[in-house]
């Protein structure tokens, strides 16, 4: 299946740019809408909803387990499948949040606040349909934001040289360290652990083989996707196995009434302010490196509550709570792809896995992605329009069957099933036993560090940003050496874009302290 090449539009008039954009859009549509792609998108949507609805089965896990199935596919088919799975898993989390009061994914935590009370009051179906429509609308708005932001940002990032990439990697690290769960100190430490692990194997400049403990299989470095699968899947499996006989209580049923669907439509479309605000918040939180749906759904919920005329009804079954969280978490999916596609920095943990998937397809995410692999990139972005619509259709039409299936999957099948997928998936990447061993060992390390309050997010981002930072640092020093032999490091502090990035690093590091001070002042005023 050959896809058409799309040129990257730059230095043109507005009319030419519009024409080029329309050309890109139609070629992307042509590349995406094939029988094979649509079939895989449908399968991914159904699997994603099932995976998302399973408590303890996160979107990151779902994407990580799907990657090995896709790397032998055509790049567009593989990426479209992963994208659809990512979006629908986030949506699927709403099912168990509403009907079981257990968020299927961390992105649905705030959906429980109002979804569950609605279900308890016999309005579970309305809540679920509201979540379906809101997720779809959030995803569609997020896709528009992705398309609008990706191109200009890619053009800016084309001006980046090694020193800028070094600071960009540091900025990504500061953001994720400050936004990760737990202490900032441990967030930073996690990032640096990831950077150190990324240095195992061949140095990007110089070619030295480092830290491989003399093992030949580690000379090429740690296999990124294997380590990601280990870090995100094995700790969850160990946690699940701690109590495999947990009973779940379903509080309401899905009957398929049109009245509920009509109400759901009104809940989303009749309150455009809440829907738009939540989508924009979700997409922008997604753009921040490392911040995912787990943050955006809570922020959007709080903002919806703050802006509402009846804030006291939130937490007692207000559908606007469900709208806010579900719109935001699905808009985050596309937002998280903006830094990934334009700068090669993932915006969320599942985006980190997509980073690995792109590498496995031989595609390097970053500024040149749009010019070198424009056909694939635009098709991938466009596919989110389709999967977000299909996701809602499946949620509404097949939701009751999917949920019935999910509640019948016992943990005793789920735990060995996930391990099976991690083992076979990791082995399939390079036919290398060492990758599987490394996957399991990194999973155990991930579990151990998580118990000590080191979040997996910063470690994984450090793993991805490490080579970018190192290459930027060493190449920057070499460039600096050509300007001043005595002070080659000056180059990192004199270029205008470097200064902007340094300012962003300082701002993101200091932000939690500012926020704490502001909260204290606000509390003092209120008290």
């Amino acid at each position, binding site marked *: 299946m050959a896809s058409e090449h799309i040129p990257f539009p730059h230095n043109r008039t507005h009319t030419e740019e519009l024409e080029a954009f329309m050309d890109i859009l139609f070629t992307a549509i042509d590349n995406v809408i094939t029988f094979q792609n649509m079939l895989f998108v449908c399968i991914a949507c159904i699997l994603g909803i099932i995976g998302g609805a399973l408590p303890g089965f996160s979107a990151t896990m779902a994407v990580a387990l799907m990657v090995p199935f896709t790397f032998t596919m055509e790049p567009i088919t593989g990426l479209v499948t992963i994208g659809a799975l990512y979006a629908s898993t986030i949506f699927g989390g709403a099912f168990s949040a509403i009907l079981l009061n257990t968020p299927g994914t961390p992105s649905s935590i705030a959906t429980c606040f109002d979804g569950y009370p609605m279900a308890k009051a016999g309005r579970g179906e309305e809540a679920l349909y509201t979540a379906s429509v809101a997720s779809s609308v959030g995803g569609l708005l997020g896709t528009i934001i992705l398309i609008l932001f990706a191109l200009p940002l890619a053009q800016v990032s084309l001006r980046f040289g090694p020193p800028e990439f070094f600071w960009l990697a540091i900025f990504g690290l500061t953001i994720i360290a400050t936004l990760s769960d737990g202490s900032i100190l441990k967030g930073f430490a996690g990032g640096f652990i990831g950077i150190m692990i990324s240095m195992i194997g061949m140095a990007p400049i110089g070619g030295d083989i480092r830290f491989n403990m003399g093992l030949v299989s580690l000379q090429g470095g740690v296999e990124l996707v294997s380590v990601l699968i280990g870090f995100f899947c094995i700790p969850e499996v160990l946690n699940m196995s701690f109590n495999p*006989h947990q009973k779940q209580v379903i509080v309401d049923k899905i009957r398929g009434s049109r009245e509920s669907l009509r109400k759901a439509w009104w809940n989303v479309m009749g309150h455009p302010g809440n829907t738009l605000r939540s989508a924009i918040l979700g997409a922008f939180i997604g753009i921040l490196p490392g911040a995912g749906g787990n943050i955006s759904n809570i922020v959007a919920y709080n903002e919806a509550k703050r802006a509402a005329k009846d804030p006291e009804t939130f937490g007692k079954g207000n559908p606007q709570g469900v709208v806010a969280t579900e719109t935001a978490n699905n808009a985050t999916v596309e937002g998280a792809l903006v830094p990934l596609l334009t700068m090669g920095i993932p915006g969320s943990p599942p985006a980190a896995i997509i980073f690995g998937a792109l590498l496995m397809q031989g595609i390097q995410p970053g500024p040149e992605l749009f010019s070198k692999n424009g056909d694939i990139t635009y098709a991938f972005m466009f596919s989110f329009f389709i999967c977000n619509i299909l996701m809602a259709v499946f949620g509404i039409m097949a939701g009751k069957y999917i949920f019935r299936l999910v509640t019948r999957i016992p943990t005793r099948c789920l735990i060995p099933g996930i391990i099976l997928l991690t083992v076979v998936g990791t082995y399939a990447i390079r036919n290398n036993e060492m990758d599987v061993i490394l996957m399991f060992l990194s999973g155990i390390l991930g579990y151990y560090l998580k118990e000590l*309050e080191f979040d997996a997010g910063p470690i994984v981002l450090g793993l991805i940003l490490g080579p970018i930072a190192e290459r930027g640092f060493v190449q920057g020093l070499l460039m600096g050496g050509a300007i001043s032999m005595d002070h080659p490091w000056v180059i990192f502090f004199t270029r205008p874009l470097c200064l902007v990035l340094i300012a962003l690093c300082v701002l993101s590091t200091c932000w939690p302290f500012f926020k704490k001070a502001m909260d204290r002042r606000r509390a003092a005023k209120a008290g």
Partner: protein
Amino acid sequence: MQRLNRDFLGGGTLLAICAFFYVQMAGNEFSAYGMYFPERVLPILAILAVLIIIKGFVKPSRAEGPIFRFNKNMIITLVTGLCWVFLLERLGFLLVSFLCLFGLQCVFTSREERTLKSVLWQLAGSLVTVVFFYHIFVQYLGVTLPKGLITFM
């Protein structure tokens, strides 16, 4: 039970990680390009480890219960997982995956549900699942999975 300080343990772990990398840096000769970055990152990680330990004294983050929750099921999962991984090439994907899948299912089945019928179902289910994934990966995705002892497939 005495409550453990997560910061001490976390800081100590980081220092151990630093030591692991430092030993390998000190024991080998590398070019300047290969060491520019690690030589700068490693001290930062060590400083962060010390800061976390200091935080453990000043504002400790203590675990309410034991830090590492371990029970029989978890240990069995861990050991089975390790066996699965280390025996994959020796016994082959089909055999080791079938044994581990079936074994874990038996372990996680509650006593009330454990009947001869359920065991037979699990046996059949494990076999079908393993063969299904083997078929998918080998036939459709073109991946070579280790055959191990089962060489006739």
